[in-house]
């Protein structure tokens, strides 16, 4: 396929609506401002719509794509057309996205992802007919799934019950944050300062009122995140083909991603604070070039029982076997190393907040804050200590650790580690301890802290890439 091609005309509408979405807040403000003189407000709105349509049409007219010399070429831009060239060998994944507009016209958008790309596709073809999409995918070496194969090969789907549990226990903060931000920005712009002052005056003055407000806010966030989870993961199916994983998900916006199995450098089993007590976890893919994506885009399994994860992954990604059995642990003498720094830091933070409250004339029980801070630090430290562990067997290394709340197990192929690290602070060194860490090509890092120094050095030695690859 060498001839230059245009996107499906539906791209015109997608671009126009995208342009309108960008100006929606100023537009609404203009309509508000124009409430006193309806004529001018309507005029502004009409002008915005007309401009979006013109720009959308121009963008569709100016956009071309073609495949030559083993590379995808993409020319776009209205005022200063620019051609992007992505070598086929560098394409990590091709995602198929169907938003509401694409569904209306029966077309798809293709996101072409490369190892170096940021969030979203390196190149996004906003609308292609099914036939064009299939032809392009074939040319890029990421063919569409043949219909006959849809039922064969290992696959896993999210049940309706699991979808609900996943949505309730795992807030899709990626969706909540922009919504909250938009509401806040909108409120500020519409209300202005005087009205904001009135809102503050209307805030509850009693403990009772505050509790009600907090419950209402929590319920609101919960509902939004529940809806976000359902929208993101509804209909989630993952299929394993010999060379790739095929992931489908989404309610309003159907996404179908293909990830070359060679691009998967590690998997992460994440047990969130709400999920671990219930025995649930989720699994994320660490794919080169996907580091900046929203978490939903990197999800291999949105929710499954912790006990089932090894069996599920053995079918989907047998290249990275999840180690069974108990992990190797840091020595008992390392326990206080996990606690000391956090207890001191927590106590310090408590002392600072106590000092601020006291200076501001609040109730003066500074010791309570210091103790609470130290206790919180100890809690986090103890959690980390109990989570810490590692496995290393042949070509696979796994590390289990806890950040603040979620417990994460990172399983990586030894020969694909980007670098490895041995580190220790001076006190830990005196205690004969050292930490081991590594990074994979998605940019993800994992580490297990305060191992016996000899064990740590031995582990770092075994995490080398092994003999150099044969040439060619």
């Amino acid at each position, binding site marked *: 396929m060498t001839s230059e091609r245009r996107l499906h005309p539906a791209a015109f509408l997608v671009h126009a609506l995208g342009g309108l979405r960008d100006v929606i807040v100023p537009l609404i403000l203009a309509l508000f401002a124009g409430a006193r003189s309806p004529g001018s407000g309507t005029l502004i709105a009409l002008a915005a719509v007309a401009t979006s349509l013109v720009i959308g049409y121009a963008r569709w007219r100016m956009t071309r794509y073609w495949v030559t010399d083993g590379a995808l070429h993409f020319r776009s831009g209205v005022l200063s057309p620019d051609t992007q060239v992505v070598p086929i060998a560098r394409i990590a994944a091709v995602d198929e996205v169907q938003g509401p507009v694409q569904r209306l016209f029966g077309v798809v958008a293709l996101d072409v992802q490369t190892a170096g790309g940021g969030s979203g596709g390196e190149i996004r073809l906003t609308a292609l007919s099914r036939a064009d999409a299939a032809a392009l995918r074939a040319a890029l070496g990421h063919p569409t799934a043949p219909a006959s194969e849809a039922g064969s090969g290992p696959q896993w789907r999210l049940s309706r019950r699991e979808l609900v549990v996943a949505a309730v226990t795992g807030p899709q903060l990626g969706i909540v944050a922009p919504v909250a931000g938009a509401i806040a920005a909108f409120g500020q712009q519409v209300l202005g300062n005087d009205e904001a002052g009135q809102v503050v005056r209307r805030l509850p003055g009693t403990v009772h009122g505050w509790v009600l407000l907090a419950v209402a806010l929590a319920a609101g966030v919960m509902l939004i995140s529940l809806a976000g989870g359902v929208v993101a993961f509804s209909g989630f199916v993952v299929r394993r083909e010999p060379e790739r994983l095929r992931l489908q998900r989404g309610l309003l916006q159907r996404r179908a991603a293909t990830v070359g199995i060679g691009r998967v450098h590690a998997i992460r089993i994440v047990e969130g604070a709400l999920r671990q007590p219930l025995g649930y976890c989720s699994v994320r893919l660490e794919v080169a070039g996907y580091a900046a994506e929203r978490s939903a885009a990197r999800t291999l399994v949105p929710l499954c029982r912790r006990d089932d994860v090894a069996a599920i992954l053995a079918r989907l990604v047998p290249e990275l076997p999840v180690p069974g059995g108990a992990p190797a642990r840091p020595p008992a003498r390392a326990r206080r190393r996990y606690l000391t720094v956090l207890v001191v830091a927590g106590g310090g933070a408590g002392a600072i907040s106590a000092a601020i409250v006291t200076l501001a004339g609040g109730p003066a029980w500074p010791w309570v804050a210091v103790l609470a801070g130290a206790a919180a630090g100890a809690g986090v430290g103890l959690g980390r200590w109990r989570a810490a562990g590692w496995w290393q067997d042949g070509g696979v290394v796994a590390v289990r650790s806890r950040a603040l709340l979620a417990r994460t197990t990172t399983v990586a192929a030894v020969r694909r580690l980007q*670098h490895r690290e041995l580190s220790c602070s001076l006190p830990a060194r005196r205690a004969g301890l050292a930490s081991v860490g590594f990074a994979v090509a998605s940019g993800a890092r994992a580490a297990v802290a305060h191992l016996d120094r000899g064990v740590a050095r031995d582990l770092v030695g075994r995490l080398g890439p092994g003999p150099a690859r044969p040439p060619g």
Partner: protein
Amino acid sequence: VPPDPDQRPARAALLAWMLGGGAMGVVAIAAVVAVFGGRGDALEVVLLVAAAVWFLLAAVVVPLLRYRTWRYAVREEEIDLRHGAFVVRRTIVPMVRIQHVDTTVTPIGQLFGIATLTVHTAAGRHQVPGLEQVTADRLRTAIARAIREPDDV
């Protein structure tokens, strides 16, 4: 584990770092004098002392610690870095994982003939500071030759 890295930064790097850090400290002191100068109150004294301490740290302590703790080795199979005064960190980057390599020279580095070597992997970058320019160029050429076969991320 490979043997500990044994190459040190160039001696001129110590001077370059001291000059660079000292310049920052001088700016800090000058800023305090310019804004609070002549008030003669406690705040001015406190800020002056703080700026002086910072000058001492930036111009003497940090460069010395940095110079004394940095070690590196460029081997056939890997690049080995060790640095840090309180937390000692040893990083081993396999040669086959390196995507590209470059050297940078700052204006102060130019004065002292000092360059920084940066290697990039798919997971980020690693820097070796304080190399003589000829050393940095030699290492860059050697690494570039060794990685001609690209990594398949």
